[in-house]
């Protein structure tokens, strides 16, 4: 399942956060724009998908679930 792997990547980028519970990563400033760039880069490598710029929007980075959905969508498009 993608979600566990996504949480692993999230923990590498930002340790010390319980990503299985947090569901407002952007609005609550848990992930900064710099951490999102790191995350996109790590996710692209981990899942071997391209995340295009229009997809780098807050809605896709609210929680580990929304990130996992984004990855699934990108995998389908590939």
């Amino acid at each position: 399942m993608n979600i566990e792997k996504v949480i692993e990547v999230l923990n590498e980028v930002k340790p010390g956060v319980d990503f299985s519970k947090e569901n407002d990563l952007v609005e609550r400033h848990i992930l900064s724009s710099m951490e999102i760039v790191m995350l996109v880069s790590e996710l692209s490598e981990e899942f071997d998908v391209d995340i295009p710029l229009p997809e780098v929007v807050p809605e896709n980075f609210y929680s580990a679930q929304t990130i996992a959905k984004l990855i699934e969508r990108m995998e389908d498009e590939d």
Partner: protein
Amino acid sequence: MQYNSYMYLFAFLIPVVILYYIIPIKYRWGVLLTASIVFYLFSSKYLIVSILFTSLLVYLAAKNIEDRNLKFKEIKKSLEKPERKLLKEKNEKKNNLVCGLVAIISLGILFFSKYLNFAGNIANSFCRLLNINMQFETVHLLMPLGISFYTLSAIAYVIDVKRGVCEAEKKPLKIFLFLSFFPTVTEGPIERYKNVGKMLSTGHSFDYKTFCFGLQLMMWGLFKKIVVADNLNRYVMVVFRDYKNFGNWVIILMVLVYTLELYADFSGCIDIARGSAELFGIELSENFKQPFVSKTVNEFWQRWNITLGSFLRDYVFYPVSLSTGFQNLSKKSKKVFNNYYATTVPMIFALFMVWLCNGLWHGSEVKYVVYGLYYYAILTLGLLLEPLFKKIFESLNINRESKGYQRCQIARTFILVNIGMMIFNSKDIASAKEMFFAMFKPSAISNIPQELLNTGMQSPAMVLLFIIPVIIFAFVGHFHEQGISIREYLAQKPLFYRWSFYLAGVAVIISLGAYGVGFKGADFIYAQF
């Protein structure tokens, strides 16, 4: 026409509101368009051609991109995969070219009206340095109202159509309304078409609650501007102008007061703008979210002038740091550095672009460039030293998630932001440098010159003027931070309490505001940008 003037509040806004609600719903956007044209002509006269041109340019560009995309959608099913891919790439290149041209032309107009003399001065300095006998004359240029704001909204609109984030508008006049909408044209917020386009062009029925919320927000904005910012401005001006005559404590205090003034001035203007828009049922983006509780400088810029920060993030930072070139650089860096530094390298380049743009956006002076690069230096150092800090904190057994540590972070960010504000408001870089060092030179507080005493510096009013707004802003900010809407809370109270509160607010603005015959209130600080 200033948002806090009688002209705007009584002679302009009230008739526009009445007209808006008596005209059939279908044509209400026309009232907003006419009002925006009148507002613009009043402030910038014939310079309206600049915003007209930009509107037409982005209208045509977005239409061109959308037509191409629609055509591709229509025929793509009939094409084989390689052909489809080839056509997609070709279209992408054409769309990028259109976006590039729009950016060059609209930024070119901005450069011509805002930065020409600045570029001339830099060229003159180089000529002097290289002993070249050449001199660029200073040209007297008039800047169209809000050019720094509407140019960014215009570029964002075309890029969003290209990215498929929003559809291209069919009517050019609606694009003109989007760019020239009178509450946003002076100081923002820098709006995106996808957020407000529909709201602007669809007429709204009168809604008592939204209307009252709009009035409340305007009143709150007027309180910030007239009671807090304009009163504090008198003291700040004197100290920043003649800082050499003051002791270090006065300078430190006035830097703090200036930060409060700028916050009250800019966020006050945005509140009046958002409140004005709410009178027509239009909800604009928030531009401030309790900036002084930020734990890092990066977070501060996600809470202060949010729409500028998000523009630079979405249209400069992400495209640069996530571009194929920089991502490849990151992959190559992984062979030399560890994972952390390999991902950080592209960001350091992207951040430079962001903060250079941020500094330059604020004004055509060296101090603004330094202001932007000051934040760049802080963020870059933070990024580069993060692994070291991590090790130090781990070895000292300091929990970075603890409340105590977070309070220290807030205090540190507040100090760094205040130093930034000092650079921002100094006459030039040399003055900023002198003021900065003067803050550390102890001197007797009694050497306050007469000029400042004449402004009432030592009176209890000065202390109250500073302390009371800080308490009020902290109180309001605390509730907002908890997700509690004070406006909703008030709306649930009985009519008598509600209106007593409103009338008390009006009384405070009338009795404590800095205005009146012979008094010229300070212009909105961000209006000059």
